């Protein structure tokens, strides 16, 4: 265990498939946030790196709950699956970001905007067809659930799933289903076994880390300046990775400052307003204004309220009168409607800004009337 002769686990001859595989593994690790330079600097012919791979694997095991995810993935399907996602988009939409990109673009790769509009139309058509198919699936699922309700042994759920219904129609498929269930059971048993032995694995990993630390101290002199380098092949898939942490820090500082300022402003404005109002008798209008302000504030508070577990992932659709350990479709719909409303507002805002910019430009031109769409 002194890291001397690394075991050669991979074929010594490098072939293109291997190179691609190695590149894929590196970029997948990078995507999940594993940026240990020793791994990313491993040679592309697979001639070295088994310890680094072991470290990366352990990291994934812990960080991604890899085994649990695999178990979920391999579950026997009920056929009632639907996917939910109410997460916020993670794409940065800052003005400066786009300006930078535009400057870098250059004139060589200009694409006609009409081609983009055409593609956009096609995309939207495909999306709509997908949407119609999803609706159809939900309709049919509902029919199945309705027709089989009351027949299930599980009295709380009450109705059959698609898989169960299919089994009623084609009983000869029971063999296949049985095999799948057996395989799932075996995986669960293996997982339980792993859970019992897991502490041993982590103890071993600690020794590996200790060994590495010792080696690191010995060759610290070689790599005096450890920099977080951005690898060229990788940046094409996440160019914003480096900016992100800096931006987040800046954002939280700005938000705190803004919050203080707003708080002060609110106090001042409220005081001034109540002074005015207490003289005149605009009670009705004052009430209306108060209500609309409260509504706007409510909209704003939902922006900075901590995102309470955004629903995400695959779940099972069922008709249920009582709340089992789940969330209701109406909740999800409401969340999505709120997001839709806020995105719509953002769109209107951006459109207004565009209109204003167009008007400004048009004013500079002689003899031109600008009619905005």
């Amino acid at each position: 265990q002194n890291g001397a002769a690394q075991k050669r686990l991979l074929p010594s001859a490098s072939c293109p498939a291997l190179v691609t595989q190695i590149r894929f593994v590196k970029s997948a690790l990078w995507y999940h946030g594993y940026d240990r330079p020793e791994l990313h600097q491993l040679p592309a012919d697979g001639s070295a790196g088994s310890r680094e791979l072991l470290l990366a694997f352990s990291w994934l095991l812990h960080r991604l709950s890899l085994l649990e995810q695999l178990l979920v993935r391999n579950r026997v399907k009920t056929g009632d699956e639907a996917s939910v996602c109410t997460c916020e988009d993670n794409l940065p939409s800052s003005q400066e970001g786009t300006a930078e990109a535009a400057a870098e673009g250059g004139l060589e790769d200009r694409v006609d905007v009409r081609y983009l509009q055409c593609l956009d139309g096609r995309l939207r058509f495909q999306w709509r067809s997908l949407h119609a198919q999803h609706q159809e699936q939900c309709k049919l699922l509902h029919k199945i659930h309705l027709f089989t309700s009351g027949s299930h042994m599980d009295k709380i759920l009450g109705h059959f799933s698609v898989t169960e219904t299919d089994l009623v129609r084609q009983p000869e498929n029971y063999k296949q289903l049985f095999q799948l269930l057996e395989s799932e059971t075996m995986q669960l048993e293996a997982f339980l076994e792993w859970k019992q032995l897991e502490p041993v694995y982590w103890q071993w990993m600690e020794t590996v880390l200790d060994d590495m630390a010792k080696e690191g101290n010995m060759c610290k002199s070689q790599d005096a300046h450890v920099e977080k380098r951005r690898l060229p092949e990788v940046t094409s898939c996440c160019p914003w990775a480096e900016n992100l942490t800096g931006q987040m820090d800046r954002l939280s500082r700005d938000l705190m400052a803004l919050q203080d300022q707003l708080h002060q402003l609110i106090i001042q404005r409220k005081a001034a307003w109540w002074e005015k109002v207490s003289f005149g008798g605009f009670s009705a209008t004052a009430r209306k204004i108060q209500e609309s302000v409260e509504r706007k504030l409510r909209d704003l508070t939902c922006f900075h309220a901590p995102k309470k577990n955004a629903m995400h992932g695959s779940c099972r659709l069922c008709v249920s009168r009582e709340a089992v350990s789940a969330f209701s479709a109406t909740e999800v719909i409401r969340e999505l409607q709120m997001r839709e409303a806020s995105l719509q507002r953002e769109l209107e805002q951006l459109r207004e800004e565009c209109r204003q910019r167009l008007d400004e430009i048009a004013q500079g031109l002689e003899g031109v009337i600008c009619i905005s769409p």
Partner: protein
Amino acid sequence: MSIVTVQLGQCGNQIGHEVFNTLCSDICGTHGLCSKKENESYHDSCKERFFCEEESGVPVARAVLVDMEPKVISQTLSMAARSGHWKYNSQAHFCQKQGSGNNWANGYSVHGPRHKEAIMNLVQKEAEKCDRLGGFFTIMSMAGGTGSGLGAFVTQCLRDAFPTSFILNHVIWPYGTGEVIVQNYNSVLTLSHLYQSSDALLVHENDVIHKICAQLMNIKQISFRDVNQVIAHQLGSVFQPAHTAGGGSGYSRNPLGSFQDPSLYTSWLNPQDAFNAWKTPRAFNKYEKSAALVSNSQFLLKPLDSIVGKAWNMFASKAYIHQYTKFGIQEEDFLDCFTTLEQVISSYTNL
């Protein structure tokens, strides 16, 4: 995948009837010039698309009929029922006792809102009957009174109620020397409003169809029935499903020689993206070979420009505007419509 058809006004209802007739006779025909399995698969696909299965066994068209007067609708319903091969749902129609006086503004601003709920209820019922709603197909004339004004309003309602559905508007382009004096106003108003709500406008020009009847088919006394049948035939051949040879629906991309000429297409779209060909081994209407071409081109630029020009000349002298303003269509609305169409003309001119 199912399509709900909305037949609007006299024109829409008469053409709609011919379309369903053509589709049904194509499906029911046994001479598909292909294998039995292929024929069955075609049959099922088309049946689901345009018709609904009922207990009586007679297919019921997935359609809603709308008109301001009862005459055309009752004729349409009875003609279909008499055919014995298909029929309309006897409940799926809406009409009033009197007409709307051929007034676009009346149709759009008065009748539309007044009867919106009743009409949309009928549409909703048809939509719910579909397992998978592919979209809506509306048929109307562009320059008339009821079909046009009410049709523009109904299209808007469809868009509001079904924001994610595909809406295809079939519009009949009026004769150049038409009889309605305000037909150019109506056309401008209809087109600009449809442009906002619809996904695609499919146009048939009366003059062109008339020529087909006269020159290609050598019909001496051309009736509306002849014109409508030609239109229905063309629509039918476009709407029928296209299969791949392996059964089930699929599309094949098949570059045919001359259509790949890049000079046919705009500079910003390459021929592979711009041209799609769908084949089907099953013959349409017993033709051994047939082909239909639908194109989005500068073809309509001249007719559109001509209509907008004539309408503008009338508008400049404020002729007949009071007919519209008295029902709530103001001069500003006219200006907006002209602007929209000028943008369309400019986009197509600068292709």
